[in-house]
C-alpha cells in the first residue's frame, strides 16, 4: 500500500524522471567529450596549425645565422631539421662554419607569411610555403635585404614537426 502510494506520488515520479534525465545528460556529456577528443577534423586542424608554426619557425631559424654565435646558430639549424636535410647539415657543418667565420656575416630573417599546402597527418608529412625577408649584413657595405620564398617539407618526429627538405621556390621554371 505504502509503496504503491510512493510510486503514484507525482513528486517521486518527477524526481525519478529527473534522475534519469540527469544520468542521460551525464552519459551524453561524457560521450560528447570523448567524441570531441577523438574528433578527426579537430585533430587535423590542430596538426595543420602545429605544422605551420613549426615550419615558419624552422625556416626562420634556417635563415638566421650570426658568425659571432655560430655554434649556437648551427645547433638551432640541426634542431630544426630531420632526415636527409639534417644529415646534410651535420656533414657540411665544419666546412660551412669556416665559410661563415671568414665572411663574418650576420643573417636575420623575418617570416612575412606562411601557409600549409599539404598535410598527411597519418604519414606525418606536411608541405609549407613561407615568404620571408632576409637581411644579410657583412662587415663592409650596406646590409643586403631580399625577399625570399621557400618551400619546405616537414616530417613529424617525437619532438614535433621538423624540416626534412627546404628550398627556394623555383623561379622561371614553369615559364613556357
Amino acid at each position, binding site marked *: 500500500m505504502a509503496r504503491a*502510494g510512493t510510486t503514484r506520488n507525482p513528486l517521486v515520479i518527477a524526481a525519478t524522471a529527473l534522475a534519469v534525465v540527469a544520468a542521460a545528460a551525464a552519459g551524453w556529456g561524457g560521450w560528447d567529450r570523448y567524441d570531441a577528443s577523438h574528433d578527426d577534423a579537430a585533430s587535423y586542424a590542430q596538426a595543420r596549425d602545429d605544422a605551420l608554426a613549426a615550419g615558419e619557425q624552422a625556416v626562420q631559424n634556417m635563415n638566421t645565422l650570426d658568425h659571432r654565435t655560430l655554434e649556437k646558430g648551427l645547433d638551432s639549424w640541426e634542431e630544426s631539421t630531420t632526415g636527409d636535410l639534417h644529415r646534410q647539415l651535420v656533414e657540411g657543418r665544419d666546412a660551412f662554419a669556416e665559410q661563415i667565420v671568414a665572411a663574418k656575416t650576420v643573417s636575420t630573417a623575418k617570416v612575412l607569411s606562411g601557409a600549409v599546402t599539404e598535410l598527411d597527418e597519418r604519414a606525418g608529412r606536411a608541405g609549407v610555403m613561407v615568404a620571408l625577408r632576409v637581411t644579410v649584413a657583412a662587415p663592409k657595405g650596406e646590409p643586403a635585404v631580399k625577399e625570399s620564398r621557400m618551400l619546405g617539407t616537414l616530417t613529424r618526429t617525437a619532438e614535433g614537426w621538423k624540416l626534412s627538405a627546404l628550398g627556394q621556390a623555383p623561379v622561371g621554371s614553369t615559364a613556357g
Partner: protein
Amino acid sequence: MNERTALESKPVEDEDRADDAEPDSQESPEGPEGTDGTDEHGRRPRWPRILGALLTVALLATGGALFAEGQQLRDTPATANLALTDAEATTRVTGDVSNALGRIFSYGPDATALTKDAARQVLAGKALQQYAALFGQVEKQAADQKLTLTTHVVRAGVTRLTGSSAHLLVFLDQVYERRGRPATTASAQLSVTAELRDGQWRIVEIGSI
C-alpha cells in the same frame, strides 16, 4: 524492526517480564508509532532522497561540464579555419584564385581586352578598383612596347578559410617579353583575399607581401 519481530515472536519473554508492563505499554504506543513508522518508512528515506537529489544535480552538472568541454575541444581557433580540413573547398579556392591571377596578370599587346574581361569576371570590390586604375597604364604600355606578360602561379596555399571567405599566400612568376628581346622573369609573393560569390571565388583584395 528486528527488535519488534523479536518482541512479537517471543511473547514468552514479555510474559516473563510481566512486571515490565510499562515497557509493554511503552511498546503499545510504539504500535501506533509503528503504523506511523510505515508512513515514516515512506518518509524515512529522507536521506536517500537528499542523496538522490544531490546525485541528480551532480550528474546534470557533470553532463553539462563534459558537454561544454567537448564543445570547447571542437570549437578552437584551429577548427574555425577550414584550410585543408575542408579539402574540397581548399582545392577549389586555390584553383579558382590561381586561375584568376594567371588570367588577369597575363596579356599580349593585342589581347588586353580579353584580360580586361577576365578581370571583370574574377575580381570584385577593392581589387577590381585597384586593377582598373592600374590597367590603364598597362594597356598603353603593352601596345606601345609590344609587351607580353605571362603569369604562372608557382605555389598557392590557403592560410585561412571559412564558408565564404579565404586568405591565400601565392608565389608567382611573371615573364615579360618585349619583341626582339630576351624574356625576363620576376617573382612575386602576393597575399590574396577571396570571397565566394554566386558559387565562384572572386578576388576582393590583392596585396604584395
